[in-house]
């Protein structure tokens, strides 16, 4: 197949390949391919009659005329001016182009706008993230503190409960269930006593303060 492409004039030059080694390196042989023969059929062209009804419709179209011209050239009898689109058709084409194929500046502008929007969304998101990250140390500290406090409270409560249990144990002589009524009564009693003590303390404090204040004012 390859051999049929090579034109006869280069078969000789390729046949003399042995001499290639003697040729200077600059000279390079280039294949000249025989082009496939164009069967234009100019001698007996078929040019359909436009007026007759027998010719099929598709042979009366502009496209077919252009094909005739392309194949037979001037001998086809086609006016070369009909090869290009008419003014009406040009208008249509121009409108189509304006709609579907914007010029490069417009396209670049669109691309730039899209990029800017993307960039802006990204920046906003980054800002939110940065702001939240800045709050993070404080939030971490708060959380840790909260946890510590909760733990401490828990520990204190445990101690208190243990103390109450021990008190109950002492009083009643056996391990009392904390949910029972007796236990609760006992707790209530202890509370009352504590309250009274606190009140007495307060009163004494106030009296002392009043006493010292009177002593100072009298002096």
């Amino acid at each position, binding site marked *: 197949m390859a051999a049929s492409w090579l034109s006869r004039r280069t078969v000789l030059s390729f046949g003399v390949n042995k001499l290639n080694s003697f040729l200077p390196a600059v000279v*390079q*042989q*280039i*294949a000249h*391919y025989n*082009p*496939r023969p*164009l069967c*234009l059929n*100019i001698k007996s062209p078929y040019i359909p009659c436009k007026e007759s009804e027998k010719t099929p419709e598709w042979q009366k179209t502009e496209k077919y*005329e*252009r*094909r*005739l*011209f*392309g*194949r*037979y*050239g*001037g*001998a086809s009898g086609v006016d*070369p001016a009909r*090869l*290009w*689109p008419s*003014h009406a058709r*040009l208008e249509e*084409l*121009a409108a189509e182009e304006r709609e579907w*194929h914007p*010029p*490069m500046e417009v*396209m*670049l502008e*669109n*691309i730039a706008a899209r990029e800017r929007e993307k960039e802006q969304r990204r920046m906003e998101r980054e800002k939110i993230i940065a702001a939240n990250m800045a709050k993070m140390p404080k939030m971490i500290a708060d959380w840790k503190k909260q946890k510590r406090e909760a733990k401490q409270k828990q520990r204190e409560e445990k101690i208190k409960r243990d103390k109450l249990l021990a008190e109950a144990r002492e009083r009643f002589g056996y391990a009392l269930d904390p949910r029972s009524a007796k236990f609760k009564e006992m707790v209530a009693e202890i509370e009352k006593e504590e309250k009274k003590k606190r009140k007495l303390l307060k009163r004494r404090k106030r009296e002392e303060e009043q006493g010292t204040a009177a002593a100072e004012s009298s002096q």
Partner: protein
Amino acid sequence: MSFTKTTAGKTIDIVKNLPRITLANLRPNPGAKKDEKHRGRGMHGGNKSGRGHKGERQRGNRPRLGFEGGQTPFYLIIPKYGYNANHRCNSVCVFYSSSRRPQYPPLSLRRLQYLIDLGRVDPMQPIDLTQLVNCRGVAIQPMKRDYGIQLIDEGADIFSAKVNLEVQVASEKAIAAVERNGGVITTSYYDPRSLQILIKPVPFLMSGEPIPKRLLPGEDLLPYYTDASNRGYLADPDKVQAARLGLAKKYGYTIPDITTDTFFEMLVQRKDPRQIFFGLSPGWVVNMADKKILKPTDDKVLQYYGNIKSL
């Protein structure tokens, strides 16, 4: 005939006196030819003839390769990955179930060097997709969503031709390989209609249509072709020059100065963004029968097709 009695005379004397070698005198070495196993073709159809016992195997009705009895076969269940990842299904119907993604069949530098060495493509002229298709160096199918060729860097080490190359996509190493040898490479866009015309100019010219103007790339591909690092045809020439120097620094070679080259004009030849063929402007009609070019004179037609300044 292989015994040698070298005592009295030479082997060659013996051989000279032996009869001529013909097919009747030749025989293969024992064990060289093994008899072919004949399948049974006897009166009652022979024995099983290596076909097995009953079933699809013997009756020749096995399903297609890859079928797994109804279970979704391996070749369908494994997802596509990498090169073919985002291409959707290949089916017979072209227009609404296959991938619309632009495809670029590869052209390696090794293949290009091979074509140049064999003289199939002429490095003294700008190398275009038309030239490559003329020498049957690439096979491209515009109807199968091929938008052109991509230059890949296989053979970048052995590539040593100075060419003015125009492809559609090029990898960075390939660009470096071309420029290192003092060549010029450009990436340009051809829309499918222009591409079909470019690869098969003669059938188009026989249709008598005026040469259309090449469309600009869409918004997806425009950033690629306006980028100087891809040597896009819409990029700023100064940036392209800067990119050439940058690439030379990156890969560690010196760019030969092409302005002093004998083929400088040929290397600098480039197409207008709206031009499909070198030397032919859109709007012209090329007639093969009369061997003439017809150019329009009407203003509106000229305005539509644009006028390329260099022609």
